[in-house]
C-alpha cells in the first residue's frame, strides 16, 4: 500500500518528517483522517489540537499543534503549524502548572480570551504527552 509522506513544520524549525499510514488532525470543521490516496485537501487547524500520525511498525506519533493548516496532495501531507510540539518533548509538570494558572484566570474573568487560548494549548500539550485531561 502506498505510504503518506508527512512533514510537520513550524516557522522556526521542521518538527518531524517521515512516512506514515494515517494522519488524524483536528480542523475547524472537526476531526479529519487522511489515508493514502486521499483527495487534495487544504484545511484550517484549530488552536490547541492534537495531531496523531499512525505508523505500522512504530507507535503513534502524537503532537500538540496550535493553529495552522493541513495540506494534502499526492500522498504528501504537510502540517503547517504556528507552533507545534511533539508529545515526547512536552514538559508535563510545566504544562500542568500553566493550565492551572490559565484556569484560575478564567474563573476570575470569564472573558479572558488569552487565558482561554492558553488553557486550550496546554490541554492539547498534556493530551499529546499522553496525560488525561
Amino acid at each position, binding site marked *: 500500500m502506498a505510504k503518506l509522506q508527512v512533514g510537520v513544520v513550524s516557522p522556526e524549525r521542521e518538527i518531524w518528517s517521515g512516512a506514515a499510514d494515517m494522519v488524524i488532525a483536528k480542523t475547524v470543521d472537526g476531526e479529519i483522517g487522511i489515508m493514502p490516496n486521499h483527495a*487534495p*485537501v487544504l484545511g484550517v487547524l484549530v488552536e490547541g489540537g492534537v495531531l496523531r500520525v499512525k505508523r505500522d511498525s512504530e507507535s503513534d506519533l502524537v503532537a500538540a499543534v496550535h493553529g495552522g493548516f493541513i495540506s494534502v496532495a499526492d500522498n504528501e501531507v504537510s502540517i503547517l503549524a504556528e507552533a507545534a510540539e511533539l508529545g515526547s518533548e512536552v514538559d508535563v509538570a510545566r504544562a500542568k502548572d500553566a493550565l492551572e494558572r490559565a484556569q484560575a484566570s478564567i474563573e476570575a474573568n470569564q472573558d479572558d480570551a488569552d487565558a482561554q487560548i492558553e488553557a486550550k494549548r496546554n490541554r492539547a500539550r498534556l493530551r499529546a504527552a499522553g496525560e488525561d485531561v
Partner: protein
Amino acid sequence: MGAQLRLLRRRIKSVKSTAKITRAQELIASSRIVKAQQRMQAAVPYEREITRAVTGVVSNTSTVSHPLTVAKEQPRRAGVLIVTSDSGFCGGFNANILREAEALAGLLRGKGIEPTPFVTGRKGVTWHSFRHREMGGQWTGFSRRPAYADAKAIADTLIEAFTEENGIDEIHIVSTEFVSMLTQEVVVKRILPLVVEETTEAPPTPLPYFEFEPTAGAVLDSLLPRYIESRIFTALLQSAASEEAARRRAMKSATDNANELIRVFTMQMNQARQAEITQEISEIVGGANALADAAAGKE
C-alpha cells in the same frame, strides 16, 4: 627619549588595542553568521510549504477574491517596511538599505503614491526620527535574532493598516538578502497586494484541485496573513545573517587596517629611535674630539 618617539609609542599602543577589539568583533560575527544561517535553513521548509499552499489556493480559486489579493486601481499611499540592524559596526549595511528605501520612496512619489515608512532596527529608527520623518510603525531589539512572534507583530500592524479605511494600498519591503558569505544584496519586494512568489523549483505538474476545509474563503482568510508573516520572517532572518556577514567584513578590514598602521608606526618608531642613537653617538664623539683637540692645543 625624544618627543616623537614617545608619540609613536602611544599611537601604536592605542591602535593595537583597537585591533584587538575589531578582531574580537570579527570572530564573534563569524560564529554568529553560522547560527543565523542555521536559523535561515530551519525556516525554509515552512516557507516552502506555505508558498505551495497559497499558490494552490490562489491558482484554483480564481473566483474567490480576497481583500489582500486585490490591487486598488488608483493606489494613494504605500507602506514601506525597512529592515535595518540594531547595532552599528557593520560597514555600509544600513546605509545601503536606507539609500535603497529613499530611491523607492522617490519612485513611489513619482507615481503619485505617498510612502509611509515602517521601520525595524534601531539604526533605521534613529535615522528616521533624526530627520523628523513620521513612521507608521517601529520595532527594535531583535535584529540579530528575530523570532516568529516579531514577524507576526510586524505583519499584524501592516495588515491592519492595509485593511483599514483610507489606510495604505500597497506594502513594499526593503531588506538585505543573504546570497552568500561574501555577497548580500539589498532587495525591494512588494508583498501586498499579494503576488505569490514561485519557489525556485518549477511546479512539476499543474497543481491539484484542492478541497477546502471548511471553505475556500475561510482558508484564504487565515492562510494569507500566515503567508505574509512567513515572508516577513524570512526577510528578518536573511537580514540578520547579512548583518553579521557585513559586520564580519567591516571588522576584518578594520583589523587589517590597524595591523598595517601598526607596521608603519613601528617602522617610523624604529627609525626615530635609531636617529636618536646616531645623534647621541655623534654628539659624544664630537664632544670627545673637541676635548681631545683642546687637550692637544694645551701641550
